[in-house]
């Protein structure tokens, strides 16, 4: 089956079709606009499954390559270069899955300026998919920066009270990191004459003497995005102010772009620097795990709690990446997906509560399980998944990361895994406290007695996530099969630098 268009082009740019259609719809035709956006994103999801069908899980290298010269001038060659491998395939699927879910969640939440909202949302999807598929540094940078603009508007127009502050902060923080990355990209391009990822991996000796600096410049951009402690301060603001759908995408996909960036660029391009700086990165990751969890404990606002828990959970991902073992890195990749599913679902449910009561304070709720049993049951599953209960997805990711970290030769100490495990315990505490405060006990506030349980549409938004939560939890092998070959390839590449260092 082939439509005459490269599958990666199609999966990246198909949302544009929806944008074009929406442009011609009248602002008042809200329902038509919503349906157009939803159908477009569902078709995009279908295309991403088609990409998956063509993907060969056993091969470690780049697949479905698409490489066209974009700009050729003496000494300068920029390619339109895309491809997919085990590191990116799941991210593309996650993006394509979460976008329609997020769109569906806005059905009643977004009433103002629906047209603009949907246009920005679909543009955001283009940018995110592009980030995961781009293999030319310049193209990657273009997509990377492009994602900023729609997200900036989503927060700034449809956000909460302090939305403008949050949107500008989000933009400036990310931009600060990426400008240094641009400088590093220019230096690399100058030294090697190419920006293509595969060529650069082959020629990485050329810029080996600068690699600590380059690692730091790329790393800053990615660390801000992840976000790693102490660069995380934009995240709570952005999350709290963003509309629910924006939070879902922000936590589910945008943060993963940072972790993905480390995997795609920092590790293979600067292996010596990676090995040398890995312990420091791991320490920052662990501080993030503990700090994020501790701050979550103190929150009264549910959305803030979930936002800070992201700092903690993403810490695990970064720890797994820089432990540099097959297990830990594969676990990190899977945990990126898990976090997207669990936290996405958490944000969705918090958003549903907010839509009903217009508050997110935990003290305003209590005992609502009796009133809304379906919501309570789904929330319980999601909470347990987020805290890593065996049998659900979070456990598989975190366990693999911790196991891999424990045996890591690069970090060289079991303490890393030991301290990080505290984060799992803390996660159980703050998540269960939230669940207890909101859903258990007697109904204290009268308004809660009138809460409506989930509508069919809301159940439909949550069910795909729950299916995957169980699937990954009970039978993760197919997912690891997709991830493992590429991860093994990557880790062996970095370990050869480790051997050379000794």
């Amino acid at each position: 089956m082939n439509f005459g268009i490269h599958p990666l082009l199609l999966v990246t740019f198909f949302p544009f079709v929806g944008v074009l259609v929406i442009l011609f719809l009248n602002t008042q035709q809200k329902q038509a606009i919503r349906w157009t956006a939803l159908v477009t994103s569902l078709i995009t999801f279908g295309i991403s499954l088609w990409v998956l069908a063509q993907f060969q899980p056993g091969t470690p290298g780049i697949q479905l390559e698409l490489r066209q010269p974009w700009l050729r001038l003496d000494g300068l060659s920029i390619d339109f270069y895309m491809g997919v491998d085990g590191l990116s395939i799941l991210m593309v699927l996650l993006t394509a899955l979460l976008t329609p879910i997020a769109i569906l969640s806005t059905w009643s939440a977004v009433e103002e300026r629906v047209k603009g909202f949907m246009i920005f949302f679909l543009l955001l999807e283009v940018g995110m998919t592009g980030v995961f598929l781009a293999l030319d540094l310049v193209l990657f940078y273009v997509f990377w920066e492009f994602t900023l603009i729609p997200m900036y508007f989503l927060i700034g127009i449809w956000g909460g009270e302090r939305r403008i502050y949050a949107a500008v902060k989000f933009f400036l923080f990310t931009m600060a990191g990426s400008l240094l990355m641009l400088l590093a990209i220019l230096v690399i391009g100058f030294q090697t004459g190419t920006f293509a990822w595969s060529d650069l991996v082959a020629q990485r000796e050329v810029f080996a003497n600068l690699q600590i600096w380059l690692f730091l410049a790329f790393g800053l951009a990615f660390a801000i995005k992840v976000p790693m402690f102490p660069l995380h301060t934009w995240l709570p603001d952005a999350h709290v102010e963003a509309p629910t759908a924006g939070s879902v995408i922000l936590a589910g996909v945008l943060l993963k772009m940072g972790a993905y960036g480390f995997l795609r660029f920092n590790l293979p391009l600067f292996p010596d620097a990676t090995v040398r700086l890995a312990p420091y990165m791991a320490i920052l990751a662990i501080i993030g795990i503990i700090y994020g969890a501790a701050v979550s404990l103190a929150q009264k606002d549910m959305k803030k709690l979930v936002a800070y828990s992201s700092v903690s959970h993403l810490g695990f991902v970064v720890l797994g990446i820089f432990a540099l073992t097959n297990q830990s890195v594969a676990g990190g990749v899977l945990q990126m997906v898990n976090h997207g599913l669990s936290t996405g679902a958490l944000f969705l449910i918090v958003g549903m509560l907010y839509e009903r009561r217009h508050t997110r304070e935990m003290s305003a709720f209590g005992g609502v399980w009796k009133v809304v049993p379906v919501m309570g049951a789904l929330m319980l599953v999601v909470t347990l998944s987020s805290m890593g209960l065996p049998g659900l997805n979070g456990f598989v990711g975190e366990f693999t990361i911790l196991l891999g970290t424990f045996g890591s030769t690069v970090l060289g100490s079991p303490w890393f895994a030991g301290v990080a495990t505290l984060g799992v315990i803390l996660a159980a505490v703050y998540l269960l406290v939230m669940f207890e405060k909101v859903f258990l006990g007697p109904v204290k506030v009268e308004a809660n007695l009138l809460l409506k349980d989930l509508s069919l549409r809301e159940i439909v938004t949550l069910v795909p996530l729950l299916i995957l939560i169980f699937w990954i939890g009970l039978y993760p092998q197919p997912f690891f099969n997709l991830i493992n070959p590429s991860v093994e390839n990557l880790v062996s590449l970095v370990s050869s630098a480790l051997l050379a260092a000794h």
Partner: protein
Amino acid sequence: MTLADFNSILPIITVLLWALLLLIADLWIPQKRKGLTALLAAIGLAAGIGLSLAQIGQSALTFKGMIMLDSFAVFLNIIYLFSGILAIGLSYDYLKRMDIERGEYYVLMMFSIAGMMLLSQAYNLIVVFLAIEFLSIPLYILAGFARPRLESEEAALKYFLLGTFSSGFLLYGIALIFGATKATGLGGILASLNGGETNLVLFVAGAAMMMVGFGFKVAVAPFHEWAPDVYQGSPTPVSGFMAVSVKAAGFAVLLRIFLTAFPSLSAQLVPVVWGIAALTMIVGNLLAINQTNLKRLLAYSSIAHAGYLMMAFVSASNPQQTGQAVASMLYYLVAYGLTTFGAWAVVVSLEQAEGKGLELEDYAGVGQKYPWLGVAMLVFMLSLSGIPLTIGFWGKFFLFRTTVQAGFTELALVGLLTSLISVYYYLRVVVYMFMRPGEPRVRRDSWLSLVAVGAAVAVVLLSILPSRLLEMAAQAVLRLQ
């Protein structure tokens, strides 16, 4: 005058003669139909573009070594002519609305453009001076065209005083260089320098004076103070025209003189120019943060962009990178010019009589009420801050690339960090337009909308397909002898 002489300045003569004829013809054009004058002026400029296009690929030194025709000059001439057409598009409705519609306006603009074209082809310091005056004097008048509005008169006077002041510096510098080298032709100066007969003290003093003079013209720090006041007071289309074309003309002649005649000196001047570039980027961007008046904001932004252009000038001192530096500067000029014109078009659309409608608050709600205008302004703001999928990104990309390759990574770092500051104030405009509710009043004029939307489309399209324009810029090399 031989045929080759004539041919080398044919576009300039055409524009000039056209302007003179138009000045007379305008007497018979009734006051109600000054649109005809505007149209005729635009046709004259378009004819100039056509003749310039025919000159592509030609190269000649004419008028006994006074005038140079090379692809660098042709490229710039096309920029000036094109920006003139855009400026006319901005002006037509504006003049009517402000009740200052007079046919001379368009004629003066054409004179100024002819001066710029002469400047880009000047190969002798006397011609340089002549051309600078030729382009400046019509601009002094244009700045005060909105009289009796006080701000406009103030702008004209300020511009005139500082302009003549800087011309004084320039002239004095030329005199010193003549004293040092016994030549005013760029070729003669170079020969004298290479022959070792030059009085170096006089020569360096003269070059520094010229640098100061040009520094005023292109408004780089610390010679930038006049720009915000003048840009604010002048009729808005004139400000836009000045922000683009005068800047381009100043940088063009700076490159021509310093690369052709003072190649050895330009290496020694690097620390000074480095400092000017860094200072201009920092000052321009920092001062722009607090501006609430759009015209002042764009003025400071244009100062900041002069700093970025100065980076290309620094890179050009590395002999291996000269060609690339010239190309990236030209590309940046196109990117900056197109974007800036678009932004000024939006400003003109919102401006009301008596200088109203220029504050940031007046932009509240534009994105909602006039989505096309809002999106166009969004594109311009993103392009000015150098964010991808706009031509401004590629402009910065090539500029920074050249700077890194020429070995000035620190300067590129200054440029990147200051452009982060610029993101903040450009985004503020976007915040007001899209995130604050308001009842904006927008003037609907088809020419104005055409410039704004057309520029926005070009800014995005040229960023998706950047190669053609970049190739053109790369071919527009300076002929050094």
